Every structure is written in structure tokens, then in C-alpha cells.
């Protein structure tokens, strides 16, 4: 089972986003063109069938995409944030001038 920790700064950002939103929040980790595998924070996200919950951050479920679940089963990582000026992700933390990322231990 993957192990997930949350940095204090990431926790702070997650709490701030939660205070702004009314819907259910989800963090989805998936891969793709242009940004590599990254965590994305969404409101009212439809979780793909077969995605695996690898932990919770400030009460928000963190899912890994179905296709990556096997390779990620022993990953130990910390959910953190970095400052990002020009973010095009639709992840909700972007409005706070930061981007979520995973730092592997």
C-alpha cells in the first residue's frame, strides 16, 4: 500500500480551498502530456472506475489512476506545494498561486 504524507503548507492550501468550495473535493493522480504525473484537486470530480484510494489529505480522498495503481503500490510520498506563477492546470489550488506535487521519499 502506498504511503502518503501531507506537508504543512499543502495542508494549509487544502484547507483554504475547502473553505471556498461547496462540492466534494477529490485529489486525482494521473499522468499526461505537458506536466508528468501530478496530483490534481477537483470539485465534484467523477472518479474513474478502478482508481485506487491511496490516502487522505485534510480529509480529501487521494486517488491514483487505475492504470498506475500497480506500479504505485509501494510509493511513499509527501503531498506538497510549490509556487507557480503561470499554471494551466485546472487544479483548484492554482488560484492560490501554487501547484500540488508529490515528493517521493
Amino acid at each position: 500500500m502506498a504511503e502518503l504524507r501531507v506537508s504543512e503548507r499543502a495542508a494549509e492550501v487544502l484547507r483554504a480551498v475547502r473553505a471556498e468550495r461547496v462540492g466534494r473535493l477529490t485529489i486525482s493522480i494521473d499522468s499526461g502530456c505537458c506536466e508528468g504525473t501530478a496530483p490534481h484537486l477537483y470539485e465534484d470530480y467523477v472518479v474513474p472506475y478502478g482508481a485506487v484510494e491511496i490516502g487522505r489529505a485534510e480529509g480529501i480522498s487521494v486517488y491514483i489512476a487505475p492504470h498506475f495503481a500497480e506500479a504505485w503500490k509501494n510509493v511513499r510520498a509527501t503531498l506538497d506545494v510549490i509556487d507557480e506563477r503561470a499554471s494551466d492546470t485546472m487544479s483548484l489550488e492554482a488560484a492560490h498561486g501554487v501547484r500540488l506535487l508529490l515528493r517521493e521519499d
Partner: protein
Amino acid sequence: MSSKEFGLFIDGKWQPAKGGKTAESINPATEEPWATVAVADRDDVDKAVAAAKRSYDAGVWRNKPKQERAEILNKICNAIFERQDELAAAEVQDGGGTIRKATAADIPGGAQTFMQFSQALLAQTEEEEFEEQVPVPSRNIVRREPIGVCAGIIPWNFPFVMASWKIAPALAAGNSVIIKPASNTPVTALLLAEICSQAGVPDGVVNVISGPGGMVGEALATHPDVGKVAFTGSTEVGRRIMQLASGTIKKVTLELGGKSPNIILDDADLDSAAMGALFGTFFHQGQICESGTRVLVPEPLYDGFVERMVEGSKRISLGDTLDPATTMGPLVSKAQLDTVSGYVDIGRKEGADCVIGGSCSASMDRGYYFEPTIFRNVDNKMRIAQEEIFGPVVSVIPYNGDAAAVGIANDSMYGLGGAVWSKDTEHALRIARRIQTGTVWINDYHLINVRFPFGGYKQSGVGRELGPWGLDAYQEIKHIHVGQSAPASDKIYMAMLFN
């Protein structure tokens, strides 16, 4: 101090963002700002959508005869060539590609897209007619019409080409369009809007607004007056756009990530294939969605082939992006550099061997440069073989027999590109037909041709861009049934209801 300033291009005019916000565009080779660009917020999205809708409803573009639309598309093509030096320099400074690539691929590639869609439009039959006798005689017209207001959300890796791929088919079909370029690389898309306007596209038909994806992208994907959204970028954001667009049932085309297989068959010209494997992964620093980042090599040839790749990689020159001798530039941003370098650590931890590269370039004292990196002894199950890295990192995977090669090639959530190398074309074709991707090259790589469809199987996308298939993606299809004006008693189907 940055020297150039750009606004938003809305309704045929340069204008500042309503909130007055601007952002600097950083040149990835110098880490210095080189331009300042207006940053749109929701009010600007509303303004751009209103301008696009107004122009569409007024019919100023869609009602022009198609010969005239085709001619204006050709004028845009010519105007791009007239401004190619300015466009190429802007593309290089915004995104960190090389001037060699910008002048050979980006700017002419964008221009050719307009010419191709001009031709596709003229070749297309606007209305087809069919006769039918059952249950009553009728003429049937099947006609193509534009969708309305189309939004294009594009990435930072090929800003000018991607803007062209979204604007040209939208215009050919008679739509109005709003482009949101990537926040890192907005300039050439903005210049393209000005070029379209100067070439005779009416005000409001082409609008380009730069701004954050979470705000501008989301607003476009959910706006009730936008009929279609075309997105190129990451699978995760594509999935989100599809979910957001579902609220108003927009037409959606998506061109997403890849982890494309580059299969070296045992009868390949190994020198050529090794160079092809390098070109397929290191061109534009590997920041291309269809990069052939999994190189599959027969076990008996494996060691020698990796050696050829290592030797060949030494012919790649990192350097000043504006110097024509430079063949590899920096990655687009510090964040991207961190991501790529994180994957090298992951690959090492998974047990793959990094045989060359693996770190930031020691020869460059500034800029987000990363050395071409080759991993050997990679298993296809490893994360570096399954996840898209979007940097100059290639996984060389051994295989035993053609069936195993096909199995490994298709064992991916993605299905965008790929190639097969062989001296025996029939042998290569047998493999190519079994690869589950939208494009397969034989004995070449990265040769996207605007006349032919491009897009992804599986989680690499929805729909196709380019060629007549790409024009279809910007059109609605209408069936008009032309019945006879005859007594109701002749219309026998009505007997289902009336006695």
C-alpha cells in the same frame, strides 16, 4: 525589463484585460522575462464569447461563399510566411525551442495548416443528395454546417502550430473561435489572431485570450454559448474538460498524452533506426506528445543498439536557442525541469540503468537545460515506461519475438503515436496494423502531415485533427428530408395514428 507588450485580441482589436492584470513571459533559455502579456479573467472570457457569438449570429464569416473563405485562409498562410522571422523569434523566446526548429517546423507548419484547410474546404461537398422511395418518396439533403462558437485550449510545446490546428479548421468550417494559449507561451497565438484579422477575417471571428487554465479554460469549457471545445494537453486535464463540458453537452475533441512505442525490428537498418529512436525521443527536448519514448529492441541486438544510441546522442548540441547551430534547447520551465529530474531518480530506484545524461546540463550556466538521457534494462511495467515524462528521457526495452513487441507496445493506457523500423516494408506493415495508436510511422518519426488525421486511441484522446477528418470535427451534419406536398391520404405512414 521586458521589451514587448501584448494585450488580449478580442473582437478584431488588441485590448488590455478588464482587470488590468499582466504577466511576464519568461525566456526558458535565459530565465529572464522577454514580454509582458495581458492576463484575462472571467469578464474577458465573457467579452470574447460575446464577440464570437455576435460575429457568428451576424453571419459575417459563415455566410461568405466558401471560395472567399478559402482564399482568406490562403492569405493567412502567406501572411505567416511574410512575418516568419518575427514569429520564429517570438516562438523561441516564449517556449525555449530552437530557432532551427521554429524556422523549419513551427512557422511553416502553422502556415501549411491554413493552406491545407483551404484545400480541404474546397474539396468538401457542402450538400449531398439522396433519393428515397420508402415509406413515401423524398429527396434527402445531407449538409454540413458550422457548430457556432468553438473554443481551443492549447499547450506550450508547439504554441503556434497548435493555435493553427485549432483556428484553421474552425475558420474553414465557418465557425467563430476563441483560443486560450498556454500561460507560458501566449505570444505567437496572439500574433496569429492579428494576422487573421489583417488577412480579412471579420472582427470577433478569431479571439485569443491568455489566462490561467483554472479560470479561462474552465470558463470556456462550461460557457453555454460555446458549442465545441478542442483541447490539446494532459490526459488528466482532458478528462476534467470532458467532465466540465458535459454540463452543456459540448462537442469535444481531445488530443492528450502518449507513451509511444518505437519498435526496432530485427531486420531494421540499425544505424538509421538508432538515429530515428533518438529523433523520436529527443526532438524538442522530448516535449512532444507523440514522442517515441519506449524504444523496443530485439534482445540479440540490444547491447549494440543502446551503444549506437549513446554514440548518436553525442551529436545533439545544447546551446543558445537563437543560435542556428543549436539543436536542443531548454525545457519550458523550472517546474518541468524538476519533474523530469524526478523521473530520472524514479527510474534509478526502479532498477533501470541510466547510461548517459540524467542531470541538468553542466555546460549551460543558466536556462532549464537537461541532458539527453537514455535508460537501459527497462521493464515495461516500470513507472518510467508507463508514465509520460515529457522531457529528454528514453526507455530502451528488450523484447523477444514480434508478438512480444506488439504486446509491450500495446500495454499502455495511451495510444497516440509510434513507429516500426525494418528494411522489409511488409514485415513492418504487419506490425503497424496491430499497434493500437492513432499514428504509426514506418522508418520515420514525428512526420505529422497536415493532410492526414492525427489523434489518439485509448486515453490519448477523442476525435481526430487535420485533413478532411479534422474539418468534420468542426461541423454539424444536418439531414433535410424534402417530402412531397401531397394529400395526407398518400402519406401511408400516417395510418399508424389515424383511422
